[in-house]
């Protein structure tokens, strides 16, 4: 057994194209992702809104508004950067994009904008609230409040909101999780290669092995064992690269991350075996092409190229999420990062286990007691 193990390991290690697909290609993609995507989905914090105030009589008399505009802050950032200009200059600044809005104070406050956006909406909200507070003050004065009481009303405000900012909301992590998941499924290439080397009707090497005195089950077991060991080693290198060099956040439960990756490798191996067995007459290039297509489609639906696709599939077509092994691994890693170890993580692991068992069962039934009438291997 050790003899077979040693030489099968050597054969696998010398297979340069497979080493590229399973090791170098993920590392190249990871580097690309790290360069482009790591901070791509960082939320833009609030930026000061640039406005042009038309310097007319109404604005000049409204010193309260002038003071408020200059002193207002959003967290620690000034809310507005004010330029007091004429109407013509204001329109020019707006057209050039130097200001986000042009405001004219009068009987009615007019806000001229070039486009719909968050800055324009925030400007609108501020001026709406300012005039609404003026209206409220008039209502309270009409009801008999004194100016002192009014001052107290506007200064003694309440904060009715308890904010819980979500931790761990880095959306770009999903790209790296799908990459790991895709890489786990790429372990199927080794399995396809194993079937090519072991099924007597697929290659001359396999025909020779078939007539050797070693047990077919033992050969298969050794290949599966080596496939899993190789792929886990490769994935460990990729994971190490992501975690330490690129500092991708996987949460705090690294042991469970490794377990999820291991289940992904099992699933990938099973899928590769299944493809290798179900397409015996096709050449190895076609089989790897099929595996690549399935994996890339699964990766796309798991959010690799468009991260929101994962959520869309989950909401609108959940069955696709449950049968896609790439999504199962991605979701397991995501649930560890966002929720920690829990029901969702175990559900994904269980799904992967079922998927793997199904693949291995089908392969076992196909391979068991296979006999060949004639081996016309090319």
């Amino acid at each position: 057994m050790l003899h077979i193990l040693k030489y099968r390991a050597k054969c696998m290690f010398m297979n340069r194209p497979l080493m590229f697909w399973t090791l170098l290609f993920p590392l190249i993609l990871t580097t690309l992702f790290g360069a482009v995507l790591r901070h791509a989905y960082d939320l833009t914090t609030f930026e000061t809104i640039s406005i042009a105030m038309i310097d007319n009589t109404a604005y000049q008399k409204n010193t309260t508004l002038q003071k408020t505009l200059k002193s207002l802050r959003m967290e620690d950032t000034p809310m507005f950067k004010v330029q007091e200009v004429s109407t013509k200059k204001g329109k020019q600044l707006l057209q050039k994009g130097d200001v986000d809005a042009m405001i004219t104070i009068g009987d009615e406050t007019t806000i001229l904008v070039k486009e719909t956006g968050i800055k324009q909406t925030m400007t609108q909200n501020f001026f709406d609230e300012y005039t609404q507070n003026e209206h409220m003050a008039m209502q309270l004065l009409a009801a008999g409040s004194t100016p002192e009481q009014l001052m107290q009303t506007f200064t003694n405000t309440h904060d009715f909101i308890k904010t819980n900012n979500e931790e761990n909301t880095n959306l770009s992590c999903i790209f790296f999780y799908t990459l790991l998941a895709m890489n786990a499924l790429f372990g199927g290439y080794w399995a396809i290669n194993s079937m090519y080397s072991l099924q007597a009707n697929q290659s001359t090497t396999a025909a020779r092995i078939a007539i050797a005195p070693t047990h077919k089950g033992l050969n298969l077991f050794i290949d599966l064992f080596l496939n899993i060991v190789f792929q886990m080693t490769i994935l460990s290198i990729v994971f190490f690269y992501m975690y330490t060099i690129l500092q991708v956040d996987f949460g705090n439960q690294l042991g469970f991350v490794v377990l999820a990756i291991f289940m992904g490798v099992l699933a990938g191996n099973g899928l590769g075996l299944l493809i290798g067995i179900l397409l015996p007459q096709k050449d190895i290039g076609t089989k790897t092409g099929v595996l690549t297509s399935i994996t890339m489609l699964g990766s796309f639906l798991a959010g690799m190229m468009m991260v929101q696709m994962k959520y869309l599939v989950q909401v609108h077509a959940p069955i696709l999420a449950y049968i896609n092994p790439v999504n199962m691994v991605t979701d397991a890693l995501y649930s560890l990062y966002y929720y920690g170890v829990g029901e969702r993580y175990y559900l994904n692991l269980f799904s992967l286990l079922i998927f793997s068992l199904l693949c291995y069962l089908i392969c076992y039934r196909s391979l068991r007691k296979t006999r060949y009438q004639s081996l016309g291997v090319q």
Partner: protein
Amino acid sequence: MNIVKLYFKIVYDKKTSILTYLVIFTVVFGLFTAYMQTNNSMPDAYESVKTNIAFIDHDQSAESALLKEYLHEKTEIKQVGSSTSEIQDALFYDEVDTVVQVPKGFGHAFRKGKENLLDVAQRPDSAQGMMLKQQMNAYLQRVYTYQAQFPNETLTQIKQRADADLKVKSKMQLSSGERINMNVVTRGMYFNYMSYVLLAIILMVVGLTMHSVYRSEILKRNSVSPTSSLHMNSFLVLSNILFGIIIWLIMIVVIFIFNGDVMMNTSGMLLLLNSLLFAIMTVTLAFMFSALTCTVRYVEDVMNGISNVVSLGFSFLGGAFVPQHLIPSGILTFAKLLPSYWYVNLNDALTSQMQVDTGTWTKVWQTYGVLSLFAVTFFLIGLVIMRKHRSQDEFVDNNKA
């Protein structure tokens, strides 16, 4: 013509790979277009940005109903399910920006003026979230103030007072100019993603086909035939370009089916020309790679690898998948060495405005020039390498691999 027929016979063998990419891309894009058009609309008149929120009411009191009615006017309340994981997933994937949970006893505590009542979960540092928090607080403060000043009035009367305040609004005006509609945005995305599909298909198919033709024994057989090398190579080049144009045409038919109404204008035509130039540039890139790899074994694996690495690499770095304004400036500087960057940059410029102004025309000619230059450069490099190999007779019989 025999050469062209031979070329397309070889290409026909790769039909599975070609169809896989085209069908998957078309189906996914079709679904995405349908989703974008039903869930997003860009109005012609000014409309304020509405934050997407989830509102969960555990109190079911008059005060919580009042708040919900207010939020209904100001935000887009989405149904994201009731379980914690559904709500948190919606927050993570930016389906909603804020989740407002009204705890039991809110109405009673609000009347007493207690603070920190509403549970608001949001993504950290979200500008929209900050704005919404401020709006909610301001409204609740307004209602509370009226309740304190008019303690004998009912909630309905208080609401009327608050609504009277809210009717006082600024007048919003949009400056003149055409608005970008959602079809234009979708069109831009299609042309950006198209670059990936063109690269993936053309690199693989052209590369493998050229390898089939330039196999050692085939080349040597052809060299003693009455067909001159110049004649053969010219027709091979034409066949490559023809294949590239066919794939491009198929993709153009798809965009016309989904978004034909926004293609029949100047920017649509410029996008078409941009994508055609990109397709031809990709053909020459494939030719260069096939020349570089003509002496390797495991040709299919190598070309597969090149096709995937180059198509994904160019697309990510060039901004086809992730918008260019989100890519770090250092990476973007490097990306300027790639043709994808220029292609996507022009697509984005043509998508961001309805009319093509002078500045954009300059960018158009600049991009076309750069893409043409890339095409010529790749072609010349491929020719030089092929000539060098031929003179050294380095072609390997890949069948012996």
